[in-house]
């Protein structure tokens, strides 16, 4: 760790966000559809409005705005599947691992014994896509361990599993 050159330290070649003895469970690909739908719901009216403005005003430069919005939409369409690909969780014997992010990556380790309660959420859109999200809460508000895009039965299974494991390994604060 005192070495300067990046590849000189053999430990840094190991992928820090991919511990060796862990099998990751990816989240459901249906999350891509759900997130893109949300984007569409937000961006479509904006785009329509901007296009109408450009059409009725008749000024050529006004098309810049709908073009920008369309570009943003394209970027999101490109980004969301990659984001969803990067999201995964893993159950180990004593803790749960949650991984997310491509550019800004994060990995959270939540011991079962530290879990205070588990939330399972599914909004109307998520239900239509057949997904739910599970959020784990410890006594620390900084623990941001939420798993989006789980099939409902998997979410329920995970919740029950967390609850039973949490009880078995329960510790005080």
């Amino acid at each position, binding site marked *: *760790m*005192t*070495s*300067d*050159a*990046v590849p000189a*330290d*053999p*430990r*840094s*070649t*190991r*992928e*820090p*966000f991919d*511990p060796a003895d862990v099998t990751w469970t990816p989240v459901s690909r249906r999350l891509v559809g759900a997130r893109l739908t949300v984007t569409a719901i937000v961006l479509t009216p904006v785009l329509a409005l901007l296009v109408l403005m450009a059409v009725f005003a008749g000024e050529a430069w006004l098309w810049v705005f709908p073009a920008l919005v369309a570009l943003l939409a394209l970027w999101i369409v490109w980004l969301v599947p990659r984001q969803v690909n990067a999201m995964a969780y893993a159950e180990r014997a*004593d*803790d749960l691992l949650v991984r997310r992010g491509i*550019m*800004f*990556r*994060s*990995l*959270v*380790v*939540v*011991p079962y*014994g*530290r879990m*205070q*309660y588990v939330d399972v959420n599914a909004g109307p859109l998520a239900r239509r896509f057949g997904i739910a999200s599970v959020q784990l*809460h*410890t*006594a*620390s*508000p*900084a*623990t941001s*361990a939420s798993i989006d895009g789980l099939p409902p039965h998997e979410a329920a299974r995970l919740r029950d599993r967390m609850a039973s494991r*949490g*009880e078995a390994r*329960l*510790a*005080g*604060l």
Partner: protein
Amino acid sequence: MTTAPGTPNAPGTPNAPDASGTPDARGMPDALGTPRAPDVEVESDEYVTGWRRMHPVTPALKGWKVLVAVLAIGWFQVGENLRQAIDLMQGKAFLALLGGILLIGLIGFGYSAVAWRVTRFAVTDEAVHLRTGILFRQQRQARLDRLQAVDVVQPLLARLVGLAELKLEVAGGSGSAVSLAFLRESEAEALRAELLALAAGLQRPGTVVPAAVATPEGTTGTPGTPTAPVAFEVAPERQVYELPMGRLVKSTLRSGTVPTLLLIVAAAIVVSIASRDISAAFVLVAPLFGAVTFVWSRINQGANFRAAISPDGIRLRHGLTESRAQTVPPGRVQAIRLRQGPLWRGPDWWRVEINVAGYGQSDQQQRDTVLHPVATREEAMTALWMVLPDLGVDDPAALVEAALTGKDTDGGFTTAPRRARWVDPVGWRRHGVRVTDRALVTRTGRIWRSVDVVPHERTQSLGLAQGPLQRRLGLASFVLHSTPGPVAPRVQHLDAGVAAALLDEQAERARTARASATPEQWMRAVGAPTPADPDPEPTTAPPEPAPDREAPAVPPRTGADA
């Protein structure tokens, strides 16, 4: 196990003998009073006997607030057109106003009186029950084995008439504290001793009332019932340090706010002289007001700051106008931070703050979470030792020294590699982490120095984070999540592989430490001596607070799980 400091963490003893006592202490399904339904039990508490009332003067003390609030609102309304208001104030209008104020005052006092009538509390062996509410009845139950801290608070007015408020923190999220206001001062003290003893897992002393603190007030509620509170002996305490007023004032003046203010003043003077226009000086009003408020609150809260240790845990007393006596039982401190700004470096002063679940969610967390407002190096060590008597190394003094002022690999710290200078050219040599047998010590900040210490068994969860630049350089930041409060440990820019290994090892270490941690009812760990035979350790604790050498040998009482 207090006699052998090493045992809780000794490898291969995850099921240490004391851990066998944990199932009954922890068998409940809610580890922290279930934050979502905080400590408020809807089921009836009819079986509870021994209901007591607050002191009858309470409505007078609380009713004031209504009057003051109404007057303040009225003042703000009128303030803008004061002259018109004064013109209106002739003759009958004035009388009407007086009558109105009187009426509002009466309503305020009346409401407080009714609220006082319906407010009752009772203490059982397991919990404190509180019934409040006129229209919306509330029955609140705070479980004593989840007790995080007990405060005796005396606002100025209550202090003058010898009353005090007793506050119990149970870490159930914001607003979960149980406040018993107001009680007679002696009654509050006796009740605090009782609650702490019960929370520690001690048995009631039965019918034998220790002569030392037999308070007649304590038993007025329902004499004769079996649960009628029998006074517990107040735990003996030994003062560890106190803060001289002079140092507090000096340190506040050197705290960064005041020099900034001086700069602003100088700039304003220069501008007004240069432009020959006095109006530039008016920009001073807001910062001046802010600075005065800041200085006053720092001095007000830090005045008469004293810390003591007792079998009940750490006792903190402070406050100029409003005096507070906090008691944090052993093992309730989740994390500790030592901070030093650039202007405190000369006199080598440190501000010591702690995370305690339950504190930190309230708006006054600034004053609740201070373990020492301005500590010298020795006092900072003592404060650290109070919380964590055993740092888990042979030479704690050297470790703390290296953590406070060291850089690079001083004191066995694992630091950010040299390539981290690209992302943090100033502070990269200070970023460091050291894992001992008992705690994780992190170090950061070159100009604003900061050291965090978290006992392994108090780790909530762990994390890694990596931004695009860090990824390029093969770096990652290690994050430790603690309960809400001023301490949020984070080690920036470690080598990615080192950070990942640290994450793995730390998860394992926290798990073993948890398994062998002392139970929530801390006296259970030492075989629960009866109150007649109080824990002898305060007297055996080192007479001289010398954390560097004696701390590992003589941890104060059950502090092994601090």
